[in-house]
């Protein structure tokens, strides 16, 4: 059992209310003092009881005027409690008196002796550490100058140097970290960390809840002089946040049935579940990007215009942009819906709007665009933000979760009618230590979103889900994008199709998988960079629709499975909005490297090995007369045929791609013969009609 180093027993502190000159004459004055009349008092601390043990780091938080400083003063012995008792078993140095008692006319060195003496050091002891103190302060060349020639920074440095070398058992730190430059603050934090390592007791008053949370073993919350002690640090901090929420212009909306709360505070939303904050202190904020510069929503004046049980309407004008946010927030059924809209007071070349959600480090897994993965740990060397997976245009939802009972699975969904949406997830830098989910809406040039007037963006949904719901969702997500053939399954991805052998559950495609690409103005445009909608059914067929961001082309893939014979019929249509010239296009299938034979109706051959120096695509077949199909086989692999129903249009080609891809590609290439280009008029054009046929290893067949 540890022994307490600081004991407070029923400590009460009252301050007399002073009234200026009336002290001598009127009420509370000299005569009353002689007559022993009591005047009304202000009670700063009310019956405080606690013990602090050796080696603890204790934080004291509370609003301004809640008695924090008084408590610290009482511990420091600067003032005496009105009632109750405090015993301190160890020398106290308070970092609140940095430079107190410095005489301006004395030199730095003399002031070190004086100040160290005041903090309870003998002169001989100071002699031992004086050199260290001077070194730590870092102002050796000025040490024999009078301190009134010092800058205020040097003043504080030397004060801190003395305070940290007097070697007391108890340190009292009162907001001292908020003065001084960045470097000094870092030095202070580092020194406090060191002192903590040395087993010193530290009592810490701060408004910086992040630091309190990071440094303290225990936190005491003072509220109007009363002590509120919750069992854990984070619970106390949560309670405090809630409390300031009630008192100031901070608004809470609650989904009471599910214990889900959102706290809105000046352009920032924090989420709480079961009274526990599940967002990190940065919360959720909106950012308007203008001239490469992000304008955070919390940098604005916010007023809450309407607040009901589950809804909140807040308006905020940014300080530095003529942009007025209007956020409508609803909370129900475990879901927070934010309907952001904004009003531009003048035309503004906005580049993007972002909503950033910051989550604590404890969230370490994600599901995004079909990939499940882990967040990498945030290391002290991480100075910038790190994105976890490449963002995918149009992918509008993600799951973030962790195996921790107190933190529910989160689903973030960003829906908008405007197409330029994507979500980026990753880690922030080491200082913020959060996971971020950044929902982007890119605004193209000359978009209506840059014009004067009111624009609504869409919905940002954040839902709490259970693990089962997540698994179901993941299953159906994959299901929705999978076509089952006989022994092959086709997974529809963003602009490509992946084929998997169901017997082995191994993919048989890689690299480009199945895709199509166009050559427009000398540039290859693959279907992967199109923006794809979620696939949907139409009769027996599946429809995938994707739109180019750059060219007025909308692709429509119509996939019709013929499951019994393991055939997937593919029709590729293309909707043109403006006249366009396409120089060339192809439909390709990238297969794994083990495929080594190819065959068309005209010739057959083997894929040669790809030498490491190969950097370009190499056509292997010689005969380029248009034909109907191309097949490949490999040992113990299903035979794959890419065929077309269109006559005399497609040349079938077997290709070895570059060494790094290590794949086999079979391709049907459409090139215009007499005309140099395909000149497409606005409207719908069928550009490919064919399919892919698989054949099981044993029943290899050449014809269709």
């Amino acid at each position, binding site marked *: 059992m540890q022994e307490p180093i600081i004991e407070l027993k029923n400590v009460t502190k009252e301050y007399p209310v002073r009234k200026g000159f009336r002290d001598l004459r009127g009420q509370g004055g000299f005569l009353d003092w002689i007559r022993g009349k009591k005047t009304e008092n202000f009670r700063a601390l009310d019956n405080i009881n606690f013990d602090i043990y050796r080696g603890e780091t204790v934080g004291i938080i509370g609003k301004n005027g809640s008695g924090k400083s008084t408590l610290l003063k009482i511990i420091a*012995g*600067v003032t005496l409690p009105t009632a109750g*008792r*405090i015993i*301190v078993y*160890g020398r106290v140095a308070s970092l609140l008196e940095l430079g*107190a008692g410095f005489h301006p*006319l*004395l030199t730095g060195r003399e002031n070190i002796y004086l100040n160290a003496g*005041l903090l309870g050091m003998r002169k001989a002891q100071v002699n031992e550490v004086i050199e260290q103190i001077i070194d730590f302060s870092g102002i050796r060349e000025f040490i024999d100058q009078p301190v009134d020639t010092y800058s205020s920074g040097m003043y504080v440095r030397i004060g801190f140097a003395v305070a940290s070398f007097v070697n007391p058992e108890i340190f009292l730190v009162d907001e001292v970290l908020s003065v001084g430059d960045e470097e000094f603050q870092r030095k202070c934090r580092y020194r406090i960390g060191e002192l903590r390592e040395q087993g010193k007791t530290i009592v810490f008053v701060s408004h910086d809840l992040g630091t309190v949370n990071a440094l303290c073993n225990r936190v005491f919350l003072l509220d109007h002089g009363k002590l509120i002690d919750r069992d854990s640090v984070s619970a106390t901090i949560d309670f405090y946040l809630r409390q300031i929420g009630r008192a100031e212009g901070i608004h809470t909306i609650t989904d009471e049935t599910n214990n889900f709360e959102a706290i809105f505070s000046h352009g920032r939303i924090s989420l709480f579940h079961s009274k526990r904050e599940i967002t990190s202190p940065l919360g959720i904020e909106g950012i308007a990007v203008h001239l490469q510069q992000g304008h955070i929503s919390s940098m604005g004046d916010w007023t809450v215009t309407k607040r009901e049980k589950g809804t909140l309407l807040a308006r905020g004008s940014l300080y530095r942009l003529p942009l007025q946010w209007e956020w409508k927030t609803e909370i129900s059924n475990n879901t927070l819906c934010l309907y952001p809209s904004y009003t531009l007071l003048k035309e503004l070349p906005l580049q993007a709007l972002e909503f950033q959600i910051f989550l604590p480090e404890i969230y370490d897994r994600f599901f995004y665009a079909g990939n499940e993965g882990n967040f990498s740990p945030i290391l002290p060397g991480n100075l910038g933000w790190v994105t976890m997976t490449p963002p995918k245009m149009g992918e509008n939802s993600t799951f973030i979760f962790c195996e921790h009972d107190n933190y529910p699975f989160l689903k973030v969904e960003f829906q908008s009618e405007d197409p330029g949406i994507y979500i980026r997830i990753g880690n922030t830098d080491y200082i913020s230590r959060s996971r971020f989910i950044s929902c982007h809406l890119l605004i193209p040039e000359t978009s209506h979103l840059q014009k004067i007037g009111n624009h609504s963006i869409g919905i940002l949904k954040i839902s709490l889900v259970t693990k089962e719901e997540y698994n179901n969702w993941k299953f159906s997500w994959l299901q929705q994008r999978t076509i089952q053939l006989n022994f092959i399954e086709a997974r529809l991805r963003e602009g490509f199709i992946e084929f998997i052998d169901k017997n082995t559950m191994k993919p048989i495609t890689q690299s480009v998988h199945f895709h199509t690409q166009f050559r427009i103005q000398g540039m290859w445009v693959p279907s992967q960079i199109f923006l794809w909608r979620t696939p949907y059914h139409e009769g027996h067929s599946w429809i995938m629709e994707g739109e180019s961001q750059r060219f007025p082309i909308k692709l429509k893939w119509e996939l019709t499975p013929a499951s019994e014979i393991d055939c997937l019929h593919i029709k590729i249509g293309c909707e043109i909005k403006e006249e366009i010239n396409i120089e060339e296009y192809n439909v390709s299938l990238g297969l794994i490297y083990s495929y080594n034979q190819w065959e068309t109706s005209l010739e057959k051959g083997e894929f040669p090995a790809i030498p490491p120096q190969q950097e370009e695509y190499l056509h292997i077949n010689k005969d380029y007369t248009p034909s109907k199909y191309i097949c490949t086989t490999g040992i113990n692999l299903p035979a794959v045929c890419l065929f077309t129903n269109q006559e005399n249009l497609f040349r079938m080609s077997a290709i070895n791609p570059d060494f790094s891809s290590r794949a086999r590609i079979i391709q049907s290439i459409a090139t215009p013969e007499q005309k140099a280009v395909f000149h497409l008029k606005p409207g719908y054009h069928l550009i490919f009609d064919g399919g892919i046929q698989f054949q099981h290893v044993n029943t290899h067949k050449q014809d269709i």
Partner: protein
Amino acid sequence: MNPLPKSVYYDSDKQKSILQVPYDLIKAREILFGLVWKEIKARYRYAILGFLWAIIEPVTLMLLLLFVFSFVFKQRIPSTDRVEVPMATQILCGLIFWQYFSSSVSTATFSLINHQNLVKKVFFPREVIPLSSTIYPIVNLSIGFIFLLSVHLILQKTLSIHLFWLIIIFPILFTFSSGLGLILSTAHVHFRDIGNMVNVGLTFGFYASPVFYPLDWVRHACENHSLPYWFYYLYLLNPMAGILTNLRECILYGQAPQPFFLFYTIIISMLCFFTGIYIFRKQSATFSDYL
């Protein structure tokens, strides 16, 4: 890690106890002398004449007073029946000790206000602050005293063995001014009028104590019925009258101090000192609330 011995650094219940004072003061002796040293260094560091000021000030005042009494009021000076001691040393003797008293009382009164950043932020026995302001002027006093002795030696060519009485008389002066300083500084924290009152009081005391005239003059005035005789006893109530007279007796006249004055001033100064310590200790714990 073996548990450290449980030494109480600070216990709020003992803070108001008078018994704690000597213990606290012994512990804080380095702070006390640190503060005195700080004052000395800060005062003379950038003064070219440095410690000479400790002499220049009383000498100037002495010359002025000497001029006034020797030429302006010459005929009024009553002749004394005792050994002739030059007026110059008489005035000088009164002045340097009075100046010690007045500067220690006035700086002590304001000392808590002047050191409020310490009082508000650092824990140490607060007695140190007014005490340091009564100790610090001893430096000036010593310089002045040496000067006085040299002047005396030059004019009278003799020093008396009775100088050793100073070992008793000076502590009386010190405890009296410290006691007054403690009381007045405590009062000044609560009632800021005290500071002005002290200034007025010290000016009054300068004339109402035998500083630039010997006590004999007052007695003569009363014996000549130019003043009522009870006035003389009233005058003697002022302990500074006794202290300064006794100082003159043993420094200038080479005589033992007058026993009545000695006992009276000892009692008064002790009373003053312990009252000061008591009041100060009772109030000191909450000074920081009122500063």
